[in-house]
């Protein structure tokens, strides 16, 4: 056995591999992405990027029914997309083990909300495991597959950002090979029409009772009896914070967080003088405990928002004042920005001239919402740019300009395509701008069906977005290079004048891709610059104000010349081409 430092995500991939897993399907999403990236490194595993999480979960379910241990990995909001198969997979059950990873993001480090996905386990009536470090991430992934097969159910493994992206020591073991189970046709079990589904619902309820009995005896639910004055129920990252803050307190650590071990929790509450529940986000345990008549203290002391760290736990429970150490106040913040040379910046520069409502989406381009670009009006969920524009246009029938939808190619494939079909079918007056940068960039450069490569960076068929749009019935489809501002502006103008839905594919690869050639940096000729600051309106990190005039940081400038095109005085150019 070797000891290694692994992130929680690496540990999940390792655990899946060790447990004889076979099929992994996923859509990238922070903080879950590296699970699949790491799974793809194991030769014994089949791993893939799916176009969205519903597809991923259905692929994994099909593989599980087909006899292979399978995994679908996603971020918390991805499970919303995959909720449809989730609830009914709980009815059908599986054949070989199926583990579904939900990586939640308390604190919203990289997400649009901080929903608590433990509720999905409760609502779909499936078991949910929550690890508190990498060693448990590995062990619980293995356990999830065993439980899945023992109880014939999908199992949810809930991670949070701190567990996914935290590193801690893990003991590695060898892979235990699992033979592929035979595929057996069983329409009673797998055809969920009403006649078949009604008896399966009864099976589901019976299974939950059996799982409740299992919860009472499993070792992943652990009583740590120390000082009995304080007892704390917790799980996941919060367990580590509790141990840090109050090392003497008694703890009931939950590993299986759905269903809860009711009897053991009742016993724990009787064994300690005062019972607390420390959980990030919702009062998931607290509400259940209180519904059983157990007196405990939770959200009276702890916020429903964001993460809970050791100092807050210590202060809330011991009532001791902790000295607050805040970061130095009143400093310029450092928000994430679109990179120098980012093609999205060029697209937004042209879009802004239209003075139209812009429905945004999920991806790097969401960064264009902040000043100075301030180019996006809404960001809700994957694909919502297309559909919300359609709704907005229907509401604002007399508006003079068509609303725009702006989304990346990966997001378009994820769930923009159905909105586009709707837009054609119902004659929407919208312009959809697909920012095709040939990669899923925000999550750290994952391939997608339009990038030409698969999860292992091997060549794959390329989805033709223009042909796809035309096949949906869009009559106005143009593909342009956003750095050709004239062509992009003309295409946008044409789209806005066109009656019916229009699609513009603004195509240029992400500047951070290794194969993308950068031009020589430009500079600002101070003899010509009048300090009008128009070039600063695009929010390029290579441009800054020095006194009254602009300078270009040559270490960052990629020579994209977007700023040069905006300069009325022609004060920005390359050293070679004066």
């Amino acid at each position, binding site marked *: 056995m070797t*000891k290694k*430092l692994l992130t929680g995500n690496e540990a999940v991939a390792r655990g899946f591999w060790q447990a004889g897993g076979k099929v992994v399907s996923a859509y990238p999403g*922070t*903080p879950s*992405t*590296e699970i699949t990236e790491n799974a793809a490194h194991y030769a014994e595993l089949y791993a893939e990027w799916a176009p969205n999480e519903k597809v991923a979960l259905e692929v994994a379910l099909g593989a599980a029914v087909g006899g292979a241990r399978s995994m679908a990995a996603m971020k918390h909001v991805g499970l919303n997309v995959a909720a449809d198969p989730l609830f009914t997979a709980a009815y059908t059950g599986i054949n070989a083990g199926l583990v579904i990873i939900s990586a939640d993001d308390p604190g919203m*480090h*990289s997400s649009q909300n901080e929903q608590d996905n433990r509720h999905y386990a409760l609502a779909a009536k499936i078991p949910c495991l929550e690890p508190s*470090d990498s060693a448990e991430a590995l062990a619980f992934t293995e356990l999830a597959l065993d439980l899945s097969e023992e109880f014939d159910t999908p199992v949810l493994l809930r991670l949070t*950002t*701190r567990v996914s*992206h*935290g*590193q*801690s*020591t893990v003991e590695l073991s060898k892979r235990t090979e699992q033979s592929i189970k035979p595929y057996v046709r069983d329409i009673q079990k797998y055809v969920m029409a009403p006649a078949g589904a009604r008896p399966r619902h009864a099976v589901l309820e019976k299974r939950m009772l059996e799982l409740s009995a299992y919860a009472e005896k499993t070792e992943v639910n652990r009583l740590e009896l120390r000082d009995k004055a304080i007892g704390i129920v917790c799980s996941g*990252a919060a367990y*580590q*914070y509790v*141990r*840090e803050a109050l090392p003497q307190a008694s703890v009931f650590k939950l590993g299986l967080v759905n269903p809860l071990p009711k009897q053991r929790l009742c016993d724990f509450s009787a064994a300690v003088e005062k019972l607390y529940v420390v959980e990030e986000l919702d009062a998931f345990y607290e509400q259940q405990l209180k519904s059983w008549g157990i007196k405990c203290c939770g959200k009276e002391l702890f916020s429903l928002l964001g993460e809970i*760290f*050791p*100092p807050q736990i210590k202060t809330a429970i011991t009532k001791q004042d902790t*000295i*607050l*150490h*805040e*970061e*130095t106040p009143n*400093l*310029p*913040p*450092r*928000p*994430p*920005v*679109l*990179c120098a040379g980012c093609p999205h910046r060029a697209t937004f520069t042209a879009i802004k001239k239209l003075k139209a409502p812009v429905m945004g989406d999920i991806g*790097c381009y969401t*960064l264009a919402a902040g*000043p*100075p670009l301030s180019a996006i009006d809404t960001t809700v969920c994957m694909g919502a740019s297309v559909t919300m524009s359609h709704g907005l246009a229907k509401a604002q029938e007399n508006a003079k300009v068509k609303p725009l939808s702006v989304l990346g190619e990966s997001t378009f494939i994820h769930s923009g395509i159905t909105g586009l079909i709707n837009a054609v079918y119902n004659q929407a007056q919208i312009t959809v701008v697909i920012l095709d940068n040939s990669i899923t960039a*925000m*999550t*750290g450069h994952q391939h997608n069906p339009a990038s030409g490569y698969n999860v292992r960076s091997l060549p794959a068929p390329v989805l033709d977005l223009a042909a796809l749009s035309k096949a949906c019935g869009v009559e106005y489809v143009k593909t342009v290079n956003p750095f050709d501002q004239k062509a992009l502006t003309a295409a946008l103008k044409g789209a806005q004048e066109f009656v019916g839905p229009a699609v513009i594919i603004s195509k240029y690869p992400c500047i951070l891709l290794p194969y993308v050639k950068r031009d020589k940096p430009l500079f600002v000729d101070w003899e010509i610059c009048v300090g009008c*600051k128009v070039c*600063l309106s695009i*929010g390029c*990190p290579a*441009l*800054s*104000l020095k006194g009254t005039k602009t300078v270009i940081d040559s*270490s960052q400038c990629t020579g994209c010349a977007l700023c040069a095109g905006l300069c009325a005085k022609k004060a920005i150019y390359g050293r070679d081409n004066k």
Partner: protein
Amino acid sequence: MSSITNIMIAGVGGQGTILAGRIISLLALKATYDVKVSEVHGMSQRGGSVLTQVRYGDEVHSPIIDPGEVDILLAFEKLEALRMLPLLKPLGRMIVNSQEIPPLPVLNGSMIYPADIDQRLQTFSGSLSLLNAYELALQAGNDKAVNTVLLGKLSQNMAFSLSDWHQAISAAVKPQFEELNLRAFDLGAAYDD
């Protein structure tokens, strides 16, 4: 609690704070400590403030360092050093790359990059090393090696041997960058305040 060493690495997305954290944690692991590391990926990578936290000792629970409990701050940028200053222990140690990377509100002229960062850092009650790691990295051959220059400086007062540092760096970087990073580390290790 005092047996735990808390190292905070602060910088700007893309500067290589995660790699620095990985190298330190490899050393701690080799020295048979319990190690935990926390980092955040994703959105903040795009030029935003980034933090990597490394904690090691006999037994480490939380991967997050409590405010006011930072033993060593390794700051890849001056403004980020100032931002994190109050989180240090009074007798902690600060190693700061004197490079200035203006954030967007400064670039577009809506805010000012503080001119008195050096003086404000000098008021720190613990020890401060301010070095131009960017220049030293260029000397070593590539500005991307800022992180290993800073690790070199860090190595001066750590219990890990020089050969262990070299080994950890070699294990953590891609083979084609090994030589560059070892050179950068040595420049940092030889740097005298």
